[in-house]
Each structure stands twice: as structure tokens, then as C-alpha cells.
């Protein structure tokens, strides 16, 4: 019996990716989990003190910075979620009003191309009370506007969300345009003939039909939110106080400022658990959606 290369070749081709996954990701994750039980400081220290193996986690539980980071993660997630909504609105408008489609698309997409290190500075200026938007508004007569978001702990997160919406809406818009384009054009015709109002059409038909696109956006969004670090660094560097810390920032801070690898590992493991908690339902949803789509 001869060798069935059509069965073996793809497996060979997959080995590098598999190796990368197992070593670089899975292996590393286990390494991180292991370290989170040690007292490693600057460099790995592989001894585990079993009498208090959970000390890093216990510390996390009491760390105000960590709970702030968790809260901010939720705020950021919900807030950046507006980017999906905004992206959809933009997409719907561009899709209906074909005029200027490519112009608007380009304008809304460009923030994606530019590093946050660059735009973070611009945003900080715009939100700076003495030279930015607030000052300009004051100068032209709106004395009462308060736009000093970055300076206050309870509003700094909004500034980050604003910048994040600015940065990512274009991407969701692109996904949404693609989703809208894939809707059978006869549905639009049918609705026009029926005289259905645009509002009802979107709410009752189009948006439910685009569930899948929304789900994809949600996955990509949560991916971005969980990894969010650059944007915090560029906009506030975590401040004022610890008010804009997010878990990824926390991990880096533990690594570079606290120089505590064990603690950073514990925080990273928690991040991973959060990821799983967010991700598993999404995966199940996706699988369910796929089945439904297949059924259709």
C-alpha cells in the first residue's frame, strides 16, 4: 500500500504553526502560570514556597490598582463598544448614500494606520485645558465648557475611550460595510415596496441579519480591549493616580516598576482567565451562529 501524501502533507505543513502554538503560546502560558506561584522578582526563581503558593493572588485581591484596572477594563469595553455602534452608523450612511463612499471610507480608516505614539500626543494636546479644545472654546465664547477630561481621575477614562473610538471606528465601519453589502439587495427592494420606514427596517431586519458581523466585531473588540496598553500609555500613562490603569498596563507596571515577575505573572494569569470568561461564550455563540448559517 502506498503512502497517502494527501493526508500526510498538510500535517507536515502544519508542524511549524503547531510548534509555535505549543511552545511559544501554550508552553509560555504554563511557564507564566508556574511563575505566578513563585516569588520571582527581577528574574525567574523557580522555587515554590508551598506554604503560601497563592500569595501573589492574595496580593492581587487586595491591590486597589488591580481592582481599578478591572473596572477600567469593563468601562473601556463598554465604552469602546460605542465604536461598533458608531462604525455601524457610519457604514449604514455610507452604504445608503453612495456619494463620496471612497472618500469617507479613507478618512474613517486612516487612524488605524497611525501609531498611537503619534496620535496620543495630538489627543493630549486637544484635551489639554490650556491649549486645546477647552481653551479654544473658551476663546470663542463658550466660557462654561469643561473639557479637562485627562486631568480628573473620573473622566480620564472617557478621554481614552474617545481616542479609542476615534481609532477603531473606521475598522468596524469597514467590517460593517462588508456586512451590509452582503445583504441581498432584494430585501431592500422588498422593504421599499412595503413602504417600511428606514428606522424599522434597520432595527427589525438589517441589524438582526447582521448579528454575525456584530459578533465578529465584538470578538475583535474584546481582543483589542483586553490587550489595550499602548493607548493608555500614550494618553495618560495610567494617571492621574491609578485611575486609568488596565490589566495589561498593570502587568507591565508590575514587571518594569515593581520588578516583580511573580506578581506580574499572577496578574497575567488573571488576564488570561478573564479572556477565557469573555471568549468562551463568544466562541459558543459563534459556533451556534455557524450552525444556524449552515442550516439556512
Amino acid at each position, binding site marked *: 500500500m502506498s503512502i497517502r501524501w494527501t493526508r500526510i502533507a498538510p500535517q507536515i505543513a502544519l508542524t511549524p504553526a503547531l510548534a509555535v502554538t505549543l511552545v511559544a503560546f501554550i508552553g509560555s502560558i504554563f511557564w507564566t502560570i508556574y511563575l505566578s506561584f513563585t516569588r520571582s522578582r527581577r528574574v525567574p526563581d523557580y522555587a515554590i514556597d508551598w506554604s503560601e503558593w497563592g500569595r501573589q493572588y492574595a496580593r492581587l485581591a487586595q491591590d486597589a490598582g488591580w481592582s481599578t484596572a478591572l473596572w477600567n477594563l469593563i468601562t473601556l469595553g463598554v465604552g469602546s463598544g460605542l465604536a461598533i455602534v458608531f462604525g455601524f452608523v457610519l457604514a449604514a450612511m455610507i452604504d445608503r448614500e453612495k456619494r463620496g463612499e471612497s472618500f469617507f471610507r479613507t478618512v474613517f480608516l486612516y487612524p488605524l494606520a497611525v501609531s498611537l505614539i503619534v496620535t496620543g500626543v495630538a489627543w493630549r494636546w486637544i484635551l489639554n485645558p490650556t491649549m486645546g479644545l477647552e481653551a479654544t472654546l473658551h476663546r470663542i465664547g463658550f466660557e462654561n465648557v469643561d473639557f479637562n477630561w485627562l486631568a480628573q481621575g473620573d473622566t480620564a477614562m472617557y478621554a481614552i475611550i474617545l481616542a479609542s473610538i476615534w481609532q477603531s471606528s473606521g475598522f468596524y465601519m469597514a467590517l460593517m460595510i462588508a456586512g451590509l453589502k452582503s445583504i441581498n439587495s432584494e*430585501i431592500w427592494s*422588498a422593504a*421599499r*415596496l*412595503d*413602504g*417600511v420606514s428606514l428606522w424599522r427596517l434597520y432595527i*427589525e*431586519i438589517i441589524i438582526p441579519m447582521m448579528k454575525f458581523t456584530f459578533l465578529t466585531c465584538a470578538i475583535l473588540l474584546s481582543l483589542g480591549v483586553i490587550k489595550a496598553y499602548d493607548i493608555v500609555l500614550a494618553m495618560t500613562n495610567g494617571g492621574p493616580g491609578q485611575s486609568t490603569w488596565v490589566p495589561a498596563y498593570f502587568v507591565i507596571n508590575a514587571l518594569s516598576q515593581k520588578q516583580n515577575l511573580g506578581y506580574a505573572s499572577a496578574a497575567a494569569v488573571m488576564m488570561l482567565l478573564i479572556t477565557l470568561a469573555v471568549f468562551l461564550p463568544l466562541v459558543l455563540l459563534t459556533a451556534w451562529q455557524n450552525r*444556524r448559517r449552515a442550516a439556512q
Partner: protein
Amino acid sequence: MPSVHFEHIVKAYGAVTVLDDLNLSVDDGDFLVLLGPSGCGKTTLLNMLAGLTDVTDGRIMIGERDVTDLDPKDRGLAMVFQSYALYPTKTVRGNLKFGLSAAKLPREEVRRRVEWAAQVLQIEPLMDRRPSQLSGGQRQRVAIGRALVKHADVLLFDEPLSNLDAKLRTEMRLEIKRLHDELNPTVVYVTHDQIEAMTMATKIAVMNGGVIQQFGTPDEIYETPANLFVASFIGAPAMNLKAARVTKRDGRVAGVFDGGQTIALDDYRFRATPEEGRPIVVGMRPEHFAPPGAPLDAAAATLDLPLQHTERTGSDATGYLKFDDGLLALRVEPGHAARLRAGETVRVGFPRGKANLFDAASGERL
């Protein structure tokens, strides 16, 4: 039930003119089928009537109303789409209701209409399902139901059956025909399937390249095609179209095929008697031939031709005879077909008064 009139319709997409000065009238209660090959402008015409596409120039009347500039929803018509265009996120009931949402009808009236449509179409058990849980034929029914609930006087169909398999197609054909007989709306129905056209229409408009080639009853179209396009487009197997020249035999008009055989044409009703020598095309339907070998008194033409092969479809069989460079198709009895051998020369007769003649240059019926 209003009539529909297209008057001097022009439609251009940018620089490309798809329809140019098209005129067409549909009487009230008529079942008009727009028949034509892909891309000939059928959907465009239908969409203009529905108001989904703008008219570049000309006027569309429904009854006495000029609807050219009306919103689709104000034209008082309903449409069934090729892909059904059901709202996938709504149940069958929701689909039927949603179409009425703009009409601001009392609740009770909506319920009544939906139930009526469900009953007419026998989809009552499906009312709470989603389109994705329906079979093709059921979806088609719901799509029709969505049009029916609107009590529109004019119903439009855009290739509504082309996504169904053969068996369902036959069933739905009967269903639509029955609905038309019962409710008697004015119908404009687009298809490129000639069986659909022949079986359902009271009037057919055959289109090609944006131009209406012939407008008439199914029988007129089948029996007296107005030009070569219509002749070749309608009928399966297609009409045999053979080049010939006009000649006189004993003072009577006849045709000489390129291969030398003649056909008597003296009982053809010419619009104008053609001069001798004029190149023409003779059209002979496969089913008009006498059975091979069977004697035919007073045949217009009697041909002795070698058999290429026969094809049997179950209830029918077609024999293909070598004729000049091409083939001549004729219908034979299945039992008879089994007895014919390829290569054997058979004698077939074509009866008088059945030929169709066309001018070879213009393609117009003579």
C-alpha cells in the same frame, strides 16, 4: 384591477441605454409574461414599474394614474422576488405583517388579511417558523403571501420559480395560475423559462436586447413567431430553421433548400408575396413532422435523410437526421424510436400549412 401602460420608456445606466422608447400595455386582469434571455432588460422594466429603478424618460401609467414619479409604496402593487427576499429574522407571520406596517391598518384587519393569505396558500401550520426553517416551495408561498396580504391590484413576479427544482416548479406554476384565476389581479411576470411563459400567460412579451420582439397570446407566439429570434427562442426541441430560396414550381410558391430539396409554400399566408430567388429561412417544428416512414398525402415536403441518432426522454423521443451540414430534429414515438437504427435513411414528411417563413436578411416573418 387596473391596466398598466409603459409609454416611450427610456432607461439608461450612465452612457449605456438599456431600454429605448419601449411601449407596452397590459389589460386589467391580464397575466403578462415578460420572456427573454438573460440581460435583455426584463428586471429593469419590472423594477421601473415597481418604482425601484428610476425611469430615464417616458411615462408609466397604472390605470389612469401616472405613477412615474411615485414612491414604490404608493403605487398599489406588490412584488414577489426571485430570491423570495423574505425577512430572515422574522417568522412567517412577521413577514406577512411587516409588509402591512406602512399601511397603518387596524390590528384586526391585519390579522384578518394575514389569516386569509395563510389559508389561501395553505401555510397555516408554518406561521411561527423562520424562513430558514422552510423548504424552497414553502418560502415561495410565503413570498407570494406577502404580496397577497397587500390586496394589491397589480402583482409583479421576478423569476419567482427559478430557484426551485423541476417538480416544485411544476407545482408552484399551477398554484400561481390558480391564484390568478381566483383573484384575477393584473400580473406582470418575468421569466426566461418558456414553459412557464407558455403555461401561465394570457399574454407574452418576448424581449431581446431591450426590445420587445413580439407581443401576443402564447398560441400566437408559438404558432406564428414574428421573427427568427422568437422562433428559435420558443420551443424545445427548438424549431428547425433551414436556409432556402423562394422559387416557383408550376406557378406556385415553393422553397428550395440549400441541399436541393423543395418545400411547397403555396398555402403560407405571406404578408407580401416574395420575389423569386429571395433568401429565406424555413422554420419547421419537430412535432409537426409525420412519423418516419409513415405515408403523408399532400405533404409540403418529403425528405429522405440519414438518421444520426435518437434521444429518448421517457415519454418522448427525438430523432436527429442529417440535413445539409446540420441536423433536423423531429419527434418520434418512443416505441418507434427504439426501432430506428443510426445511419439508416428514413423518409419523413412535413405537412402543409405548418411552415414558418422568415426573411434571411432581416429575420422578420414573411
